[in-house]
């Protein structure tokens, strides 16, 4: 099929090129002057949009998903019990955990009855999705703010337990430990009547969803057909 032909009809001010170009020049000039003024400011962070990286770092979100760390509790005990939930939930399969029993006389070092004997994270595989953090029942593994993870060898990118604990110490020293995540309020398991009331109260768009919902999770049911408006 032939392509549609577009007639180009521009107003005269556009057709002569120059007027709009001069307007554009005015705009870039405004930015030019503004930034020249900024660039005489003191300090590394002069032009507001640019960060002079090593000297001048942008604030990092407290929620940042960076280098992992193994947490200790207030008494300095390791939280990890080596259950391996993180390893199982990891989409990149980068965590290996070996469960172990604390050695005789070292029970004080661990918060739980068991501990992880070995904990390695292959940072070359990690995709920083944060699922391990979410899966951990003890809050032992946390993704911190470490983001300068370049190394000279591949071996150095495989973090062992000592490295992960050191990450924690460094973060604690720097005061960048992640705040405890707020608990996400979960929809209460709906008693039948409450659910019906709720879905009735909900506005029109939810109608379809609500109708679908009425099927109940996991139960086959006749799908509502008249729910399309």
């Amino acid at each position, binding site marked *: 099929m032939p392509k549609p032909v577009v007639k180009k009809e521009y107003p005269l001010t556009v057709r002569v090129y120059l007027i709009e170009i001069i307007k554009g020049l005015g705009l870039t000039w405004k930015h030019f002057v503004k930034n020249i003024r900024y660039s005489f400011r003191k300090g590394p962070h002069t032009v507001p949009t640019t960060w002079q990286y090593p000297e001048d770092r942008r604030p990092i979100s407290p929620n940042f998903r960076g280098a992992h760390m193994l947490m200790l509790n207030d008494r300095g005990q390791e939280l990890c019990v080596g259950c391996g939930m993180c390893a199982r939930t990891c989409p990149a399969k980068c965590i290996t955990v070996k469960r172990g029993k604390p050695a005789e006389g070292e029970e004080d070092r661990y918060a739980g009855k068991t501990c992880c004997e070995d904990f390695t994270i292959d940072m070359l595989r990690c995709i920083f999705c944060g699922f391990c953090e979410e899966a951990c029942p003890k809050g032992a593994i946390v993704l911190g703010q470490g983001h300068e993870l370049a190394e000279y060898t591949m071996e150095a990118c495989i973090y062992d337990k000592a490295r992960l604990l050191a990450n924690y110490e460094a973060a604690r020293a720097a005061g960048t430990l992640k705040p405890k995540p707020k608990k996400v309020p979960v929809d209460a398991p709906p008693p039948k009547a409450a659910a019906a009331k709720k879905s009735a109260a909900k506005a029109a768009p939810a109608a*379809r969803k609500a109708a*679908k919902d009425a*099927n109940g999770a*996991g139960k*086959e049911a*006749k*799908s*509502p*057909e*008249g*729910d*399309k408006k």
Partner: protein
Amino acid sequence: MSLKERVQRCLGDDVIAITEYRGDLGIEVPKGNIVSVLTRLKEDETLGFDFLTDLFGVDNLDYYAKKKKKPKKKAAGEEELVEEEEDKGPPPPRFEVVYLLQALKTNERLQVKIRVPEDDMEVDTITTIWKAADWPEREAFDMFGFKFRGHHNLRRLLMWDEFEDHPLRKDYPLEGKGEERHLSYD
């Protein structure tokens, strides 16, 4: 009239099975009639499924294997009808090709399925109806090995040309079979 009835009226005997799950209507039609079925669906005034959303293959190898293992399991959803027939007859065709259609006027969606046995992978192309089926058919060929009869350029799309397997088949291992691509320069 509900969509189901309209589709049944339009296609008549061509509907082998109708499934419905979460409001998504799916019909199964005979493999040989797919072009005529889709044309009728497109041109029927009450339906007007004039937009091809997608086209893809499904490999049901594991699905049947699992079914056989646990015949007691309550069949949920669309498989119910099919399963009852299956128990008696020969094993069902391994592959499926699913066509997702949409009617732009009414915003209804419809899944049309055909079953493709492993020993007869030829399917009629629908690029004659929708040009949009061009790459999806190539991809289905690439990933499952369907041979779309009449497709003007049935080459591999995502894998390289010398690749021999069909990676989305269930018997193809996730980590591959160690194929390497050898590039040759002149």
